[in-house]
């Protein structure tokens, strides 16, 4: 079973590739840790051997002390318990206090350190499908590529379409296809970033899978998270999907050229978003007409310094 999406479909594999690269399945097993569980039935023994590599995810010394006690008693217990299973206690309690997303968070911090060391400014763009993330990137890269070195990691379930669009702007790009997966995680970004071979002092846009729910929980190691809503959506989106708005730093309201034709109330949307996260900073713009893009560009230039 895939750690990312839970799918059992053997053809549903995560692929990471650049435009023009042949589609192969070579990368499907490179996610090591993520997919280790997939192979458990077939490779039980190998799995046991591998698990030594991951010992650092919880406090060791303390557990180890307790463990040695439990081990000493375990022979008596196991034979005893078979007869008195129901009345027996649950055995020895070991306090773990382990964050379930620890592995992703650790990897995200590694990504963050890697980006910091190379002076790469990473921006994680999240939104519903169709809010204009890719158009915003195309326009931004085309207008600013003389001033800023951009590169892009694209996330979608299927197709190279977005990577091909970015590729046309001339910026280095790599596409992650998550197959059935509903979000990018830190491991995918780590692998994609290495493969993309990002130049120092550049700005990395990570376009997440279009989904306002799941990507909120997965830190990728970004410097800023930018949530995009378009005026063709409801102005109550921040209330309906508060987790995403709570975890973002910037909110872009896109497609403002369509405001005369829709019922979207910009002030109401901003008020709702601020109720969820009063630190949010807003940019109202139209990536299509260029209206309002200057403020966004000024912010990008400011954070890169």
């Amino acid at each position: 079973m895939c750690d990312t999406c839970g799918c059992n479909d053997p053809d549903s594999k995560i692929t990471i590739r650049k435009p023009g690269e042949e589609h192969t399945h070579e990368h499907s097993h490179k996610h090591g840790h993520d997919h280790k569980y997939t192979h458990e039935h077939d490779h039980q023994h190998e799995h046991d051997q591998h698990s030594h590599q991951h010992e650092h995810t919880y406090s060791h010394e303390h557990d180890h002390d307790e463990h040695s006690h439990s081990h000493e008693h375990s022979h008596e217990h196991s034979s005893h318990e078979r007869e008195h299973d129901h009345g027996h206690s649950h055995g020895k309690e070991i306090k773990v206090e382990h964050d379930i997303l620890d592995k992703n968070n650790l990897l995200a911090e590694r990504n963050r350190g890697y980006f910091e060391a190379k002076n790469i400014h990473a921006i994680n763009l999240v939104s519903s499908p169709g809010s204009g993330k890719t158009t915003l990137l195309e326009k931004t890269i085309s207008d600013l590529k003389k001033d800023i070195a951009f590169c892009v990691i694209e996330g979608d379930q299927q197709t190279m379409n977005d990577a091909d669009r970015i590729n046309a702007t001339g910026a280095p790009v790599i596409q992650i296809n998550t197959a059935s997966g509903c979000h990018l995680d830190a491991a995918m970004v780590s692998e994609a970033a290495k493969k993309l071979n990002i130049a120092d002092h550049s700005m990395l846009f990570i376009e997440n899978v279009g989904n306002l729910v799941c990507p909120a929980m997965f830190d990728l190691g970004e410097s800023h998270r930018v949530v995009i809503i378009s005026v063709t959506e409801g102005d109550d989106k921040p209330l309906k999907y508060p987790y995403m708005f709570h975890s973002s730093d910037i909110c872009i309201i896109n497609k403002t050229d369509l405001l005369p034709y829709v019922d979207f109330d910009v002030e109401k949307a901003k008020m709702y978003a601020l109720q969820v996260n009063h630190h949010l900073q807003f940019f109202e713009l139209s990536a299509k007409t260029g209206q309002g893009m200057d403020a966004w560009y000024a912010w990008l230039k400011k954070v890169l310094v």
Partner: protein
Amino acid sequence: MHELSIATNIVEFAEEFAHDHQATKINRIELEVGQLSGIVIDSLKFALEFAVENTVLEKAEIIITEIPGRFKCYNCQTEFDKSVWYTPCPSCQSMDSELLGGKEMQIKSIFID
């Protein structure tokens, strides 16, 4: 759908834990999930049913404790519990509050023989 990722993370941790403690099975595992963590507990339970198959957790009793969202008002310092993000302070109606708890997503304890 991300609850299945979470369930798989729990199972992976349990497998490694059992190996490190030379346990062949886990009797009980206690989890804490905050009301503001973004996890639907029913979905997590459903996902775990499948994720634990043929693992050290297969026979384990799984206890999930829900932790309420707890806020502290920046304006008047009142502390209050709420299960949603956008909540005015019950005393002064200010929307500016600090989150004290409710985003937990933890494996608290594991019981082995």
